[in-house]
């Protein structure tokens, strides 16, 4: 070993987790009228390195689950990423696993990657395989995040113009559970009439008319529909060159998705509602999907996301990470996606990177001409805004310590 290599190895030498903390946010805090809805996990090591992880929403269940899992972390080497993942996973899979328990495992995994990156002096994407993508193409999700008061069903033309001006060439909209038609609210996802099918197309048609083929359109259906409604909706969208059709049904019957995927030429995308490589494997094997979406702060963490994408690659299925959560999700997704050979397009939300994240983070990556790039600082490279901690907007809560 060269002296440099030995010094580097020493830096990542034995390390112990000495403290587990939660970071929560003032419940009455509003940024542009919206509340931060995430939750951070902070791992401190005996070498003074601090790693941050995240999941959401910021619930009591997460805090409770973290208290249950924290004793498994104290004294452990945070760089043993896969081992600790498996130990926690086995602990929580004596019972039906998932939910808050699994999301805390996810947040812990992200904090471990942050620590490994800081200890080795490398940005996380370099530990995941390096720069497979120079920059990441993003789309903008509307959902409950209007831009300057413009919503998808009130100002579809102006929204398309606003995004195109900034070089953002793809948008995700929710015509079936938002707006004046809201067929979901009328029938609860069990039925859709011919009139509702036609009227729900309004924002799609208006964006196409205003922006032509310059704007890609994805649709999200929030997993509330049954199989025949999903088929009818997909059929009605066939003429519009849809980028992907996301989550029409709950992903708890992948044969139903396989039936839908056979019926339509629109690429099917599911689902940030799934977690672990085990569940995604089944989805690939069933030919139930064309584009894979996961949420790095729900699916089991950065490790699990990478494993899922690498497996998807063997089916020629590309990855489109879900990022509609907090800032560490945004950073973690950028690192993960940068290292993916089968990257497709990544979610982004104008309100979040423009208004919400900068309240907490100094160096938020912002799309330039429709692309974001990964930060080069070690670990996740997140620079917390100390003012948010000083002001009481963010509150550190002790969970467990050696």
């Amino acid at each position, binding site marked *: 070993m060269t002296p440099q290599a030995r010094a580097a190895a020493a830096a990542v030498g034995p390390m112990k987790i000495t403290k587990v903390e939660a970071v929560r946010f003032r419940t009455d805090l509003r940024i542009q009228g919206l509340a931060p809805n995430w939750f951070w996990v902070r791992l401190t090591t005996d070498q003074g390195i601090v790693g941050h992880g995240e999941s*959401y929403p910021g*619930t*009591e*269940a*997460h*805090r*409770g*689950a973290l*208290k*249950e899992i924290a004793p498994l972390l104290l004294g452990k080497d945070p760089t043993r990423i896969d081992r600790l993942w498996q130990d926690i996973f*086995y602990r*929580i*899979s*004596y*019972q*039906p*696993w*998932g*939910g*808050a*328990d*699994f*999301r805390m495992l996810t947040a812990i995994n992200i904090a471990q990657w942050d620590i490994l990156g800081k200890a080795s002096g490398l940005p996380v994407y370099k530990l995941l395989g390096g720069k497979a993508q120079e920059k990441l193409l993003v789309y903008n999700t509307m959902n409950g995040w209007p831009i300057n008061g413009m919503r998808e069903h009130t100002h579809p033309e102006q929204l398309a113009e606003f995004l195109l001006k900034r070089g953002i060439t793809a948008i995700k909209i929710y015509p079936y559970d938002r707006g004046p038609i809201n067929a979901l609210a009328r029938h609860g996802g069990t039925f859709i009439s011919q009139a509702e099918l036609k009227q729900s197309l309004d924002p799609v048609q208006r964006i196409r008319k205003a922006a032509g083929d310059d704007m890609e359109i994805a649709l999200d259906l929030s*997993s*509330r529909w049954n199989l025949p409604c999903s088929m009818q909706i997909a059929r009605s969208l066939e003429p519009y060159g849809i980028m992907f059709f996301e989550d029409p049904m*709950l992903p*708890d*019957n992948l*044969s139903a998705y396989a039936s839908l995927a056979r019926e339509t030429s629109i690429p099917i995308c599911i689902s*940030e*509602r*799934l*977690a*672990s490589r*085990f*569940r995604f*494997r*089944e989805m690939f*094997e069933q030919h139930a999907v064309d584009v894979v979406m996961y*949420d790095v702060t*729900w*699916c089991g963490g950065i490790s699990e996301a990478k494993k899922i994408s690498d497996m998807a690659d063997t089916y020629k299925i590309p990855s489109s990470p879900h990022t509609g959560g907090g800032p560490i999700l945004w950073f973690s997704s950028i690192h993960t996606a940068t290292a993916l050979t089968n990257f497709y397009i990544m979610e982004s939300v104008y309100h979040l990177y423009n208004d919400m994240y900068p309240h907490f983070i100094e160096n938020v990556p912002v799309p330039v001409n429709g692309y974001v790039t990964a930060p080069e600082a070690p670990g996740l490279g997140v620079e917390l805004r100390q003012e948010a901690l000083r002001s009481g907007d963010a509150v550190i809560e002790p969970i467990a310590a050696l």
Partner: protein
Amino acid sequence: MQPSRRSFLGQAGAAMLPASLLAAAEQAGPMKITRVDAVTFRKDIHVGGGSGGSDGAEFCWVRLHTDTGLIGTGETYPFHQGEIGALKDYAPTLAGKDPRDIDGIWRAFYHRMSMRNAGGADMRILSAINMAQLDILGQASGLPLYRLLGGKTRPRVRVYNTTTDYWAINEMKMGPDTMRNVQFLLDRGITAMKIYPFSAPDHYLSNEALDRGTQWIREIRDKVGMKMDIAVDCWGRFDLPSAQRIAKALEPYNILYLEDAMLMNNVKAYAILAGETSVPICMSETFATRYEYRDFFESKACDVIMYDLTWCGGPSEAKKISDMADTYFIPTSPHTCGGPLLYLCSIHMCTAISNFLIMESNYWKYTHQYPYFVNNVPKPVDGRVSAPEAPGIGAEIKPELFRSGDAIVETVAKV
């Protein structure tokens, strides 16, 4: 204007319905959840009784109070900080609801938690809420729970004893005390047991460890022949080749079932195992919801199903799972190694379902642990237990728990 229930009965129904039915309809009038309480237990409770390791309460309770005065109690375990946290998240939407709207409330919560991978603490607390709702429905209708689940398909429910070192019978250990355990059970008419003969540091089970574990079973068969049914549980720890070798080693012994030989996360691996061996494969209290079980039925990946009523989505979900399993001729063997309400509620379920095989029980729990919390714990007679006849779950929860400081009550939502 929508006619109210009362005016509808008055106008359209009064002429047709007999007075007794009208009275019943009045009784079944509107009901609202007014308060949601979390009940946890002091950490230093010592039940005693020679369990070998386990002692206090690993479970927690959810109590739903209604404006009619009825109180329903549900249960789950074992990570109550996460579970009560989840209860705090969900309880505000429960307050004001009619607790008898069982499937609607279940579906709304399931959709909500499915936004981000249902399961874990969220699913466990939904299970507890569902149990409390059914407890209220039973009390409101004056019927024991099993009557609401389809009635008395069998008067008595056969049990096996889960025999482990930490829930031991009078500190007896498997291995050194295998035959003392077996005789103790047979003397009480209990003719089935579940054991954990195989363990390894990782996913591979060595030939030596495999043989050492099989020796327990050989000894039982040599000494008492086929008088004792034997189920083997592996806690989901092995890889496929080790699971295949375990099944092969068990072939000669007429095993009741082999449970959780691998993690439950690959239905095809289980289909391979089930296709290769004549040992019935049992899956798994680590599943929740009919959606997860369905896949195993379709793929011929299991022969017996196990669920835990306080984990799988609650009694109403368990009933749906059993009914679906029945269409595949797959019988049910519920997991009950939790708290007393799980045990009582499981007896109700097993009394009613058409495809019952055998129910789990644990001597230390029903002899020492459950009676610490509940007065009327059914104990096996001739290896069988019967459901209580009181309305709802019918648990006589000890009032002194709430005076002694053993039970810690926290109100998490209120109208």
